């Protein structure tokens, strides 16, 4: 049977298209916020500290969006949705952090000189790299969350290009 004749068949649906990923993803999201009764991998002190550090990294990015917007009103308008998403990522990271200890002061949010958009893009790319690197030494939902945020920021980098 040819592929063309199979197009009309019932073998594939949107559900099927996403089936490879749907199973367990809800569990994954719940795991990021410590779902009760669900066995999740233990968090080492080192992993907890590393995740707290990434909260600080993301706080710096949120500050960078504010700084870029303050430096250039046109940029502020253009990146409003990206800034909102950076805040959403920060909220998710804070919820996933196993302790509420505050991260170290966020560097890199000084007012940009010159091209605010280009400066901001550099901040986004650096933050993405930081989260992607940190993801490698985490596991379970913490790794998934950091990886997802890193990917989201790669998308922002693409948008700012």
């Amino acid at each position, binding site marked *: 049977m040819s592929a063309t004749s199979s*197009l009309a068949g019932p073998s594939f649906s949107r559900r099927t298209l996403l089936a490879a990923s749907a199973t367990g993803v809800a569990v994954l999201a719940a795991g990021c916020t410590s779902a009760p009764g669900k066995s999740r*991998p233990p968090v080492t002190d080192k992993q907890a500290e590393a995740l707290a550090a990434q909260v600080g990294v993301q706080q710096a990015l949120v500050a960078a969006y504010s700084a870029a917007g303050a430096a250039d009103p046109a940029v502020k308008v253009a990146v409003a949705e990206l800034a909102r998403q950076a805040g959403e990522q920060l909220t998710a990271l804070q919820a996933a952090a196993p302790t509420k200890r505050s991260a170290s002061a966020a560097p890199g949010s000084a007012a940009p000189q010159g091209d605010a958009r280009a400066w901001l893009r550099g901040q986004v790319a650096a933050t993405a790299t930081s989260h992607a690197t940190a*993801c490698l030494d985490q596991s379970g939902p913490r790794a998934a969350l950091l990886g997802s945020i890193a990917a989201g920021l790669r998308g922002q980098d693409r948008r700012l290009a």
Partner: protein
Amino acid sequence: MSDGAPTTATETAALRAALAAEHTAIWGYGVVGAALGAAGRAPAVAAEAAHRDVRDRVSALLADRSAAPVREQAAYALPFPILSAVDAAALGVVLEDGVAAAWVRVLDQAALRATRELAVGLLSAAEVRAVSWRIAARKTPVTSALPGLPPTK
């Protein structure tokens, strides 16, 4: 007995699911490319090539583990009719979002650092392609805060 920590078995299962998603994307990009016409086909061709490369890498990885292979289906029903270039771009979004979710799942289930490194790179690549397709499909927002993760509300 398990403490919930990822194991080689959970990782392999997630990789098999990711391979199934890659098969789907490869097939789907054939449809996207056909709908875009010669002038606009290049992004679909590039995306299909990228997913073929990933398919080959993951297949080899699973073969090294003697894991059961994941075969592509002969065809798949489309999630919606593809009647225009915008529809084709929207299908590109669906394909990349599906792949992204699969690679997030691998991150959640991976036991090995090298597997997480593979997954985070492929997840990022999928989201970058998805941004381009969302722009072409005139979807907003064009970026996703948490690609591959389900909405929290």
